[in-house]
């Protein structure tokens, strides 16, 4: 029993780090890339983030499911922090929130 509680605790802590409640994240820039497919999705994200300062946060609205996987992966590979990836139930849209760490 104790073991089960402990596992649950760890899981929810981990969840907290990756998926912060929306109200806690303030974005400095929002972009809408609905209708775009890869690689233009990431191209637009990258161009938008180049205009930002390190530490600033971007909110990305998209509807291409592949990109919801690929954009966070590419952002992490290029040294940025992905703070949130969420499907907006019933809309077919996704939101990605990321913080710029490096140019």
């Amino acid at each position, binding site marked *: 029993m104790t073991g089960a509680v402990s596992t649950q605790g760890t899981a929810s802590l981990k969840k907290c780090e990756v998926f912060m409640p929306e109200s806690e994240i303030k974005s400095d820039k929002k972009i809408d890339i609905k209708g775009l497919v890869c690689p233009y999705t990431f191209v637009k994200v990258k161009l938008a983030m*180049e205009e930002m300062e390190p530490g600033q946060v971007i909110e990305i609205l998209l509807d291409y499911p592949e990109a919801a996987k690929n954009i966070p992966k590419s952002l992490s590979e290029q040294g940025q922090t992905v703070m949130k990836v969420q499907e907006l139930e019933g809309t077919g849209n996704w939101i990605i929130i990321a913080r710029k760490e490096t140019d």
Partner: protein
Amino acid sequence: MEFTEDQIQRYSRHIILAEVGGKGQKKLLSAKVLMVGAGGLGCPAGFYLAAAGVGTIAIVDDDRVELSNLQRQIAHSTKTLGMLKADSAKQTFESLNPDVNVVAIKGRLNKDNILDIIRDYDIVVDGSDNFPTRYLVNDACVFLKKPLVSGAILRFEGQVTTVLPGDGHCYRCLFEVPPPPGLVPSCQEAGVLGVLPGVIGSLQAMEVLKLILGKGQPLKNSLLIYDALRANFRKVKVPKNPECPVCSEHPSITELQDYDAGYCQL
């Protein structure tokens, strides 16, 4: 400058690279590169530079397109036979990428005009087919402190090196003076497998992009040698020669010189 939607699509594979991005692409678009020769090396080098969106590409060449060129000089075509190579290449590169301004310089470099011609450019690409031009270009680049990406080919072997004056070796550190004309293969001997200049010219274009972007390690103080038959690349160190006649502290060559002709035109 802001990218157009067409540019975002055209350069998307550049922009998504961490090492390039929109900022790097803008550097490419504002770069000015001068190419010596629109032959075997200049065609593929210029082709890729144009595709990459290098904004200004000058081509110096006074030859006309001949049928025997088309086995390797891919910027020209059966339709441009007889046309000046500088014009033929300009037409090809500008139709590949309208973002690129190609300046066709229909003439030959000599000691009196070279400094004025290369002065306005950021990087020089030597794809010349003869030793007099090769040494003239090297010396002029050293005098003006212009980065130079030099390529050479013969039969199945090619070489590339990048000269960064003040920072690394120069062509004369490697080979102090041109070989005597008699030692250079005669025209009948000087065959070349058509793909070879494609490999070497593409390596030159890669060096140019790296210099513009400020990424990676250029072929400074080194010579890359490609042996096509053995499918082998070898990189040899070329230390800066402290006694180099042109780039050392006390150079013996302080002005440009024209060597005699008498060399084979590859």
